[in-house]
């Protein structure tokens, strides 16, 4: 009987683990690729929705997502990279559960893997692609924002 009780307690503890983990901040690893080459990530990223905005430091290529942003419907993701300002709108906040993001930029043309998806007439220099990956997710998904990249002011 005691064993059974312990077993139940153990099971309850195990079941509570995922919930406890989800209560902690979500962490996203951000990789930047420009013209096919990996570049250093920005020092910080800015997330915003409605009247909320937060500048989040990027440490070891990762940023922590505050709970309020993880619970939002959609957010705007922004970052400064070299002489460029990146601002990607309408990013589903559910995608923060994908721990591996890659920001893909190109100055004239994307590599083969993305060239097919850019609508005709897309000004590549003004666009960017954000790829969302997660363990167990296959294929990865991505979004192309045609107007996300501008000169930094």
């Amino acid at each position, binding site marked *: 009987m005691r064993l059974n009780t312990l077993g139940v307690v153990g099971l309850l503890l195990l079941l509570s683990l995922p919930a406890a983990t989800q209560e902690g901040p979500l962490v996203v690893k951000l990789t930047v690729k420009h013209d096919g080459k990996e570049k250093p990530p920005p020092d910080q990223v800015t997330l915003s929705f409605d009247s909320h905005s937060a500048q989040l430091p990027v440490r070891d290529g990762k940023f922590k997502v505050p709970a309020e942003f993880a619970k939002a419907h959609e957010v705007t993701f922004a970052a400064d990279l070299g002489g460029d300002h990146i601002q990607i709108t309408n990013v589903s906040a559910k995608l923060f559960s994908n721990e591996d993001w890659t920001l893909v930029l190109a100055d004239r043309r994307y590599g083969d893997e993305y060239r097919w998806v850019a609508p005709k007439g897309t000004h590549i220099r003004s666009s960017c692609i954000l790829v969302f990956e997660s*363990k167990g997710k296959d*294929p990865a998904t991505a979004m192309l*924002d045609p107007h996300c990249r501008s000169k930094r002011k």
Partner: protein
Amino acid sequence: MPPEAKAAIAASVQASNSPSAQAGDKTGGFHEEGGIWGTDAAGKAVAVPAVPGKAADPRAEKNASIDVYSSANPALKQSLASVGGEWHVHPSGSMLGLDGNTRFFDQGPSKDTDIPRAAGPMNIVVGAGEKKVYFYDKSGVIGTMKLKDFLRH
């Protein structure tokens, strides 16, 4: 690589691009197809298509996938004496949102899922949108070919 496998891969690409009631994909381009190939006891090449994956949404944080060993014809799989490799197709579907952003499926093997799970003697992902064939193992992508060249040779 046996011509039977190439023919099955070509059929999978066409099937992924086509509507599938079984997958719940009304338009085509939003579900995975795949399978395995090998030889039977007599040494004859056999390709074994899998049950299609469920329809997927490129906007979602999670995705439907495919079990290439879940064969559409289990008797055909039973006839295999050895497995030569496995393939699956990453769908070509994309969605242009009202926000002007295009959501789509990444075409190559996913680094968080396909690559670490590479189990076959030969592992193939076909990007149906990019029309490219990716060969990979646990170390990463080891080669690529245009789909038309792959099917021709």
